[in-house]
């Protein structure tokens, strides 16, 4: 079991951050907007050089950076990809991020990748298997990683535990941090008919290191996690509730499709910041 804390001096502040996406690179570099931190998709910086990496190497001096992976396939039955881990390790050495995270999902089988975040079957054998893989990844990278819950549209019949029990067990057994995506909780709760509040209630507050917020879309009766819209009212409400329970946490606005002007993204992050400020004031008042 690995319980290493990030060794870097920078730590993700308990404030709102934004996802740094390609169309905003030049503007963020030129204007350095006031935001607590930046998150990027690790794989987009796996190259050994070039402009994206130059941008990130400059910005890391001004913002704490969170490296968020989408391709490690921790929930797959394949062997862990050592080349993927090595590229991630190289990037970590170069960027010295405040956080490194991945998803609780599978995206490959027998060497073929689907490059999507697919749900695992929440049962004991999968839990044992994925715990071993998180241990191995943390060992290889020499640091704690944070695991994010995904949105799902299907649930496997052979599951014998809830997703929230599964997620909580991962952090208890491997010492990994949790990245709680509240939009994903909401989307899955609507799609599978569970109470999103039960999910958040089950989260171990000390293990939740970061929160994600995003927008989704509808396909008839199914909610789809598209990261293409503003955060909806119901998710803001759940977020407020989560902060009450978990305390102030670094919070990211994710926007990956139909990416808006940087100002729109920053305004959405400012809403999250207002929620965090409120919680921090309450905590401060309670401490007096």
């Amino acid at each position, binding site marked *: 079991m690995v319980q290493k804390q990030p060794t870097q001096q920078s730590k993700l502040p308990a404030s709102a951050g934004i996802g740094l996406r390609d169309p905003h690179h030049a503007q963020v570099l030129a204007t350095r907007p006031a935001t607590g931190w930046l998150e990027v998709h690790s794989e987009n910086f796996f190259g050994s050089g*070039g402009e994206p990496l130059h941008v990130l190497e400059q910005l890391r001096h001004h913002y704490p950076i969170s490296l968020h992976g989408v391709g490690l396939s921790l929930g797959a039955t394949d062997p862990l990809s050592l080349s993927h881990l090595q590229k991630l390790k190289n990037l970590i050495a170069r960027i010295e991020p405040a956080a490194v995270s991945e998803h609780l999902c599978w995206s490959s089988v027998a060497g073929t990748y689907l490059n999507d975040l697919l749900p695992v079957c929440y049962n004991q054998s999968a839990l044992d298997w994925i715990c071993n893989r998180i241990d191995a990844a943390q060992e290889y990278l020499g640091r704690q990683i944070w695991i994010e819950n995904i949105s799902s549209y299907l649930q496997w019949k052979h599951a014998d535990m809830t997703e929230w029990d599964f997620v909580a067990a991962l952090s208890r057994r491997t010492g990994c941090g949790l990245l709680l995506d509240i939009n994903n909780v909401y989307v899955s709760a609507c799609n599978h008919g569970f109470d999103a509040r039960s999910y958040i209630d089950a989260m171990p507050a000390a293990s939740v290191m970061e929160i994600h917020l995003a927008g989704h879309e509808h396909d008839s009766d*199914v909610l789809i996690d598209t990261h293409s819209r503003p955060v909806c009212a119901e998710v803001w409400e759940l977020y407020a509730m989560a902060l009450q329970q978990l305390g102030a946490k670094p919070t990211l606005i994710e926007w990956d499709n139909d990416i808006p002007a940087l100002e729109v993204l920053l305004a959405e992050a400012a809403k999250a910041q207002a929620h965090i400020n409120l919680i921090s004031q309450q905590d401060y008042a309670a401490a007096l």
Partner: protein
Amino acid sequence: MQQHSERHQLFCDAVYTGAPAAPDLINAFEGNKTSATHRFEIYRRSVVGNLVRAVVATYPVTCQIVGESFFNAAARAYLKNYPSQCGDLNEYGEHFAQFIGAWPHAATLPYLADFANLEWAVQQVYYAADAVTDLSTLASCPPQYYGMLQASCPVAFRRLDSAWPLDAIWRVNAPDYSGDMTVDFSQNCSLAIVRRNARVHVDSLQPGQCALLDALLSNHTLGQALSMATAADQDFDLNNGLAQAIQSGYISQFYLPTPLQETP
């Protein structure tokens, strides 16, 4: 984990073949058959959409040439033949040139495969490590040993030849180009793809430059390479040809063969 693996395989096969999901797969999900089938199709659309977008992102000009709907059809056919092998989507599409060259629907565009090769090279150069330029060996080399120098190219460099005028096609399809769109398809080309000032450039090479670079790339000495350049192009500028190759970023380092270095 055997059962998990088998179900993942059924899921993966169903996504890539485009065939309806097998009953064994649909029955492995909660909910009724209609709902599970509908939801599986959401995943299929998402996976296919991600992969097609990745191919478009790597081959934007090829896509522009043939139009989006034709290109999307090609990308969909490609992914059935070449499933993704990597967790990094930026690496997807490596064999697209080979595929499009053999795809019957693109047979009327015989230059397309070579053009896709060029776009793959552009992406490789875009993400490659920065050049480490070190001309100290050249600077300190006694003149009598010049001819024995060998050279290497930066990682962010590719050479490409084609029987088609890829350079002209590249130029007229550039986002900021507004001139004559005519391309003389009887022309061929020799290209250097290189990163200068953080941007990828596609340079057309004259026969002499081309012979010089190819000779150096295949470990010939500078003396041999300059002779080959002159043989290929009698107008090759012996005085400035090498300097031009260095300034253009094609050559980043010189070295002397080891036994010579050890000579006091």
